[in-house]
C-alpha cells in the first residue's frame, strides 16, 4: 500500500500536468482533441520507456548516461541489418534490438559490479564509445527511409484501437514495470539496494548484481526504443537522440525519483516524462518560439527538485510533539 499507492508527490505532479493542459486548452481547444492527445502520448512514448529504465537504475543509486547512445547504436544496427536483409521479420528485429541493448546494459552493469567503477564514469565512457561505434560501423553514412523495408518502418505505426503500436508498447512497458517494481523480488531489491546498500548485503541481496540487473533492464529498453525510434523517424545516423539521456534523467527528476537512490515510483517516472512531452508539444501550438523550450524545461527541473526536496525534507523526530501527545 505505502509504496504502490499514489503518494502526494505524484498527485501534485498529476495536478500540475492537468493544470498545464487546461491552460493550453483554454486558449487552444484543439490541443485536447483526443487525436492530438493521443499524438502527444505517442510522441512521448520513447521518453516514457527510457525514463522507466532510467528509474530503476537511479533507484539503485546509479545513473545511465549511455541510454541515448545505446538507442542510437541499436537503431543503426537494426537499420543496417534491415538494409542488408530486408526480409528479416520484425519479431526477429525486435529480439535483436532488445538483445543488443541488454548486452550494452550488461557491459555497463558489469563494469559497475565487478570493477566497482563509479556509475557516472562508466556510462560517461560507454556513452562516447557506443556513439563512436555507430560511426565505425556506418562510416558516418545515414540510412534513409527509402533504404528501409516497408514492414520495418510500419511496425511502430500500426494502429490498434486508434493508438499506434508505439504507444501500446509504452503502455505495456508501464504495466510491466508496475508489476516488476511492486510485485517482484527483483523490483523490491532495487529499492533495498538504493535505500541502504549496506543493509541489502545483510539481507542476502547482492548489491552489484542488482545494480547490474537494473542496467540490463535499462539497456534492453534503450535497445527496444532504438528500433522503434529508427523505424518511426525512418532514418538512422550517428547523432540520433543526441543529448536525449539528459532529457530522460530530467523526466525522472521531475517525477520525484531521488538521485540519491531508494526513492521513486513508476507513476512518477511516467508523469515526469509526460510533463516534458506535453511542454515540448505545446510550445509550437501556443506559439511560443521553440527557442524557449530549453529554458522552460530547465526551470521545470529546478522547480521540481526544489519542490521534492522541501516536501520530503525529514521533519525531525519531533521529541516535543511526542511529549505533547503523551500528556
Amino acid at each position, binding site marked *: 500500500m505505502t509504496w504502490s499507492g499514489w503518494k502526494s508527490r505524484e498527485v501534485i505532479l498529476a495536478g500540475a500536468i492537468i493544470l498545464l493542459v487546461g491552460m493550453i486548452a483554454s486558449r487552444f481547444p*484543439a490541443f485536447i482533441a483526443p487525436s*492530438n492527445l493521443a*499524438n502527444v502520448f505517442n*510522441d512521448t512514448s520513447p521518453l516514457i520507456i527510457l525514463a522507466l529504465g532510467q528509474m530503476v537504475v537511479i533507484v539503485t543509486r546509479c545513473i545511465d548516461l549511455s541510454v541515448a547512445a545505446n538507442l542510437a547504436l541499436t537503431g543503426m544496427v537494426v537499420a543496417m541489418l534491415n538494409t542488408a536483409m530486408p526480409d528479416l521479420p520484425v519479431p526477429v528485429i525486435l529480439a535483436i534490438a532488445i538483445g543488443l541493448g541488454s548486452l550494452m546494459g550488461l557491459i555497463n552493469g558489469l563494469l559497475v559490479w565487478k570493477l566497482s567503477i563509479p556509475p557516472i564514469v562508466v556510462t560517461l565512457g560507454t556513452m562516447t564509445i557506443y556513439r563512436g561505434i555507430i*560511426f565505425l560501423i*556506418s*562510416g*558516418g*553514412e*545515414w540510412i*534513409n*527511409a*527509402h533504404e528501409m523495408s516497408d514492414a520495418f518502418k510500419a511496425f511502430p*505505426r500500426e494502429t490498434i484501437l486508434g493508438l499506434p503500436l508505439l504507444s501500446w508498447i509504452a503502455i505495456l512497458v508501464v504495466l510491466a514495470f508496475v508489476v516488476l517494481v511492486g510485485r517482484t523480488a527483483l523490483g523490491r531489491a532495487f529499492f533495498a539496494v538504493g535505500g541502504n546498500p549496506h543493509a541489502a548485503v545483510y539481507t542476502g541481496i547482492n548489491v552489484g548484481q542488482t545494480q547490474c540487473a537494473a542496467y540490463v533492464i535499462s539497456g534492453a529498453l534503450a535497445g527496444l526504443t532504438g528500433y522503434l*525510434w529508427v523505424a*518511426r*523517424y*525512418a*532514418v538512422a*545516423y*550517428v*547523432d*540520433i*537522440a*543526441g543529448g536525449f539521456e539528459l532529457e530522460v534523467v530530467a523526466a525522472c527528476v521531475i517525477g520525484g525519483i531521488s538521485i540519491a537512490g531508494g526513492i521513486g515510483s513508476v507513476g512518477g517516472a511516467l508523469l515526469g516524462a509526460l510533463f516534458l512531452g506535453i511542454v*515540448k*508539444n505545446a510550445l*509550437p*501550438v501556443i*506559439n511560443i518560439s*521553440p*527557442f524557449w523550450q530549453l529554458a522552460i524545461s530547465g526551470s521545470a527541473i529546478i522547480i521540481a527538485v526544489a519542490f521534492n526536496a522541501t516536501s520530503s525534507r525529514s521533519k525531525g523526530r519531533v521529541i516535543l510533539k511526542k511529549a505533547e501527545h503523551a500528556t
Partner: protein
Amino acid sequence: EDKRIALVVKALGIGFFEAAAKGAEEAAKELGDVEIIYTGPTDTTAEGQIEVINALIAQKVDAIAISANDQDALVPALKKAMDRGITVISWDSGVAPEGRQLHLNPSSNELIGNMIIKLAADHLPDGGDVAVLSASATATNQNIWIEEMNKVKDNYPGINVVATVYGDDLADKSYREAQGLMQTYPDLKAIIAPTSVGIVAAAQAVSDAEKAGQINVTGLGLPSEMAGHIDSGASKSFAIWNPIDLGYSATMLAYNLATDKAEAKPGGEIPMGRMGSLTLNDKNEGAMADPFTYDSSNINDFKDIF
C-alpha cells in the same frame, strides 16, 4: 608533388556532402596531381570545425574548401590558415568575406528563394497556407534563402506563409516540428523545407499522418532520399543542384587559386573544369548553376546517382 586540398564539410555522414566528396574525387582524377582530404566534425558545430582546421593547418595542406557551420566563428581560424599561405574558399554554406578568398554558392540565392516558393505554388492553383521547416538555426544558407523567398512571396497571390519552424537538421526534431505544423494549421497545404534532412522528415511525417496528397512537401532534397516520397505522393516535386557538381567545382576553384592559375577578385572569372567558370561579384561570391527540379517524371533517372 601533389596538391593537398581539404574538403571540409558541416558534418560527416550527410548524404549531400558524401556526394560532394565524390565530385571532389572526380576533379582530383581529372587534375591528376591532387590529393583530396575529405573531413569534418561529427556534429554541426563551429568548434568542431575549428579543431579540424587547426589540424589541416598543421599538415600544411595547400587549400581548404569549407562548407561552414557558422559564418563568423570560423573566420579567425581560417584567417590563420590564409596567413600561413593556405588557400581558403567556402562553398555551399558561406564564411564571412574576411575568412575566405571566395565563396561558391550552389546557385544564386535569389533563384533558390524564388524556386522554393514556386515549387509550392505550382501545385496550389487556388492558393493556401504553406509553412517553412528550416534547418539548423546556426546555418546561414537556409536563412538567406527564406529571406529571399519572403521578398518575392507577393508574386504568388493566395499563397500564405503561416510559420517558420526549425528542425535543427535533426531528423526526429524536424519530424516533430512537421507534426506540430500539421496540428497547428489544419488547413496547411504545403511544407517548404529548404534542407535535405528536413524535407525527408517532413515527408515522413506527412505520410504517417496519412495526409500524402493533401499536404505537399517540397523544398530542397536529394533524389536518392526523396524517391520513396515522390512515389507515395507526399512530395510532388523538389529541387536541388547537383552536389557532385558542387564538390567538383569547389575542388577546381581551390586548385586554380592554390596554383596561382587564377586570382579571386571582384569581377574575376575563375575556371572550374567541365562546369564552366565562376564569375565573382563584389563580395567575391559566385553562383554555380541553376537548381534542377525533380518529380515523378525524372526521379528514377537520378535516385541511384546522389
